[in-house]
């Protein structure tokens, strides 16, 4: 009996010690938070612009005394880690520089703080390029309700090997074969000709590097450029009708075109996104490479690319119907569960100031601030800034509805089957997407 009592008391003591230590740790953590008052954590993906943002944050700290840290994670993990934190209602991050398609989820599921009044009060809706405000901040589109401040404007563009394009022998051979001059392609058909011309497997040199990866949104970001250029669309953004819009003959032809272009990519290019496409240029694998502008600084850096001096840049070519570029880039949103909203607002207020936007641009960030964007200083800062400025006038974006991940899963799978695997036809892929997307919209009550 005595032993039982002792055993019981020991068990209770163990539980008490455990609970006490948890409390002590929690209190310590809170006390730590108190000591670190004035420290802000901004969450973003691991890439060069995040490093530039940290440099900008260092200036912010010097001026305000508030420490701002940019915490990063690899792109492959960015979405999962962010939404894991949201699911846990965690306060590890105060601001997130999130993808434009997250807006619907962030807004409707309560993860983002609404910034409509703040944006209007600070004139951000006037100072930033209108397309970027709509793409990175507004949800639902056209509602005038804002959830983010545009941080990094971005869109798809192209890099190419100038030395190959300007080689007299290549130029003569190209003209003899295609009947026109080898120049930066103005149309997608010209781009296909050039890709075919430079496709030389025996020399380990290939025509073009394009996005093909099945995970997340890579292939979709590549396909969108041709889909819109051919005059098709992802659907009706007001009625959510998809059938008859995405799977038109133009839409199907655009997928067939992307499939044709895929033939001229380097071998085993069925799982390629931005690192592979940059590598296609830095390793001298391809004549042209599609990528987001935010990844071009590496191509222009002689320490990272031996072809930096002979790399040129151009905007998305024209299609039979239009000239459109798939939007990339991100906006900064205040996370609802952060306990430092005041600091987050202070950072945003400092960030949107015109002089700080100019510094952001000078550091290498793709500012969305109109004044900075249009300045000659910015346009001449890099060989691709002018092309970036042109591109930002013709961007379009994927669905930003909360169910974007379900939509992406369907189109990534079906386009990959049609373009990379070749197991279904472009028509089957487009019909399949129309059917699956409408089923998703139906399930989530968009037609009610």
């Amino acid at each position, binding site marked *: 009996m*005595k*032993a*039982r009592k*002792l*055993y019981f008391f*020991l*068990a209770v003591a*163990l539980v008490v010690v455990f609970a006490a230590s948890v409390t002590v740790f929690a209190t310590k953590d809170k006390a730590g938070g108190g000591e670190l008052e004035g420290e802000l954590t901004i969450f973003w993906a691991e890439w060069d612009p995040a490093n530039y943002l940290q440099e900008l944050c260092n200036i912010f700290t010097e001026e305000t005394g508030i420490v701002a840290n940019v915490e990063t994670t690899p792109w492959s993990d960015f*979405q*999962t880690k962010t*939404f*894991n934190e*949201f*699911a846990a209602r965690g306060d590890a991050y105060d601001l997130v520089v999130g993808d434009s398609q997250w807006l619907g*989820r962030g807004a409707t*599921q*309560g*993860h983002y703080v609404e910034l409509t009044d703040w944006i209007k009060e600070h004139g951000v809706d006037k100072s930033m390029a209108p397309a970027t405000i709509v793409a990175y901040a507004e949800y639902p589109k056209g509602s005038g309700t804002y959830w983010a401040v545009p941080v990094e404007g971005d869109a798809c563009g192209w890099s190419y090997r100038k030395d190959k394009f300007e080689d007299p022998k290549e130029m003569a051979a190209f003209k003899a074969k295609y009947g026109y001059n080898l120049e930066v392609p103005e149309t997608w058909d010209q781009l296909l000709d050039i890709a075919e011309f430079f496709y030389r*497997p025996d020399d*380990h040199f290939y025509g073009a590097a394009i996005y093909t*990866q*099945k*995970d*997340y949104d890579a292939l979709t970001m590549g396909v969108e450029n041709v889909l819109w250029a051919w005059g098709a669309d992802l659907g009706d953004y007001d009625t959510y009708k998809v059938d008859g819009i995405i799977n038109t003959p133009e839409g199907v032809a655009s997928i067939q075109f992307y499939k044709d272009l895929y033939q001229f990519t*380097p*071998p*085993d*290019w*069925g*799982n390629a996104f931005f690192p592979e496409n940059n590598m296609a240029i830095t390793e001298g*694998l391809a004549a042209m490479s599609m990528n987001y502008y935010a990844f071009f600084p590496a191509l222009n850096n002689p320490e990272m690319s031996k072809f930096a001096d002979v790399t040129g840049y151009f905007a998305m070519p024209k299609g039979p119907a239009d000239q459109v570029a798939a939007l990339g880039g991100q906006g900064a949103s205040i996370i609802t569960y952060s306990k430092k909203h005041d600091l987050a607002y202070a950072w945003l207020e400092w960030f949107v100031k015109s002089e700080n936007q100019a510094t952001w641009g000078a550091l290498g960030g793709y500012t969305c601030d109109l004044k900075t964007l249009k300045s000659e200083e910015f346009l001449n800062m890099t060989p691709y800034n002018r092309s970036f400025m042109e591109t930002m006038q013709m961007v379009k974006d994927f669905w930003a509805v909360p169910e974007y*991940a*379900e939509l*992406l*899963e369907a189109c990534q*799978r079906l386009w*990959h*089957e049609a373009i*990379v*695997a*070749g*197991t*279904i036809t472009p028509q089957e892929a487009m019909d399949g997407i129309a059917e699956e997307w409408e089923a998703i919209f139906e399930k989530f009550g968009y037609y009610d």
Partner: protein
Amino acid sequence: MNQQKPGEMLATRRGLSDTAIKRLFVLPTIILLLCINIFPLIWSLGLSFADYSAVRPRVPGVNPNWIGGGNYKEVLMDSHIWEYFTITAKYAMMAVAGEFLVGFGIALLLNRDFKAKGLITTLILIPMMMSMAIVGLFWKLLYNPGWGIINYMLGLKDFQWLANPRVALVAVAITDIWMWAPFTMLLALAGLSAIPQYLYEAAEIDRASWWFKFRRITLPLVTPLLLIALIFRTMEAFKMFDIAFVMTGGGPGTTTELIAINLYRLAFAQWNTGRASAFAYIILIMIIAISNIYIKYLNKAKEM
């Protein structure tokens, strides 16, 4: 009258029996297991009966919305998921069979005395000590038609492994075999070295052939350990995620979309927590069923 051992009596006199001390030591582990294993298991079982997304705000009746067996029905009626199950079954068969042939073959070769046997055995074990993601990454490079050594050595020029829907699954399975055949080898080697030599000596006296000795002595005595390896490797093959995800991302098309990859997409890209939980339980039940079949054979083999 209770008979206690002297040590136990001493402990009891001090107020704590040996059993109590044992329980006390085990208690933290039990609590930890309950918290991080059993509780999530029961919790996710509950969620599998709800239309629920962990990222949406919790609103009773809406999120979670209890729908009974709706998620299970949806998963079982989804033709894509059956396609992924088929792909996974093909993958598991290829990978496990390959691991057995290679692993057991190497074990037979190593089951003799020769110079540097220990060193060679250790070197062969290196692949299974590596991180699966790293293995996936460097095999992706090895398979690259441009600079990968595989095409160079086999003289295959621009042959595409990972972007080719006909061979992508085989390519991933080969990587799995390379990594895990040493595990089968290790268990087989343990079984082989435990076989008493006198059995072979007796067979030699009877002038038994190599094949006879293998069939009647080696195989029956090593079978229990091989079955243990089979259970572990089948379970692992069904759960395979890292290598396939890094090498192909589930492509080209859906040719390497294993159930674990699809489950990941459902749970952490689409945040369809309820349906993902139901899917996970279906996978769990299948793995338990397959393991039980093996365990039955294992028990039979032990009795022989």
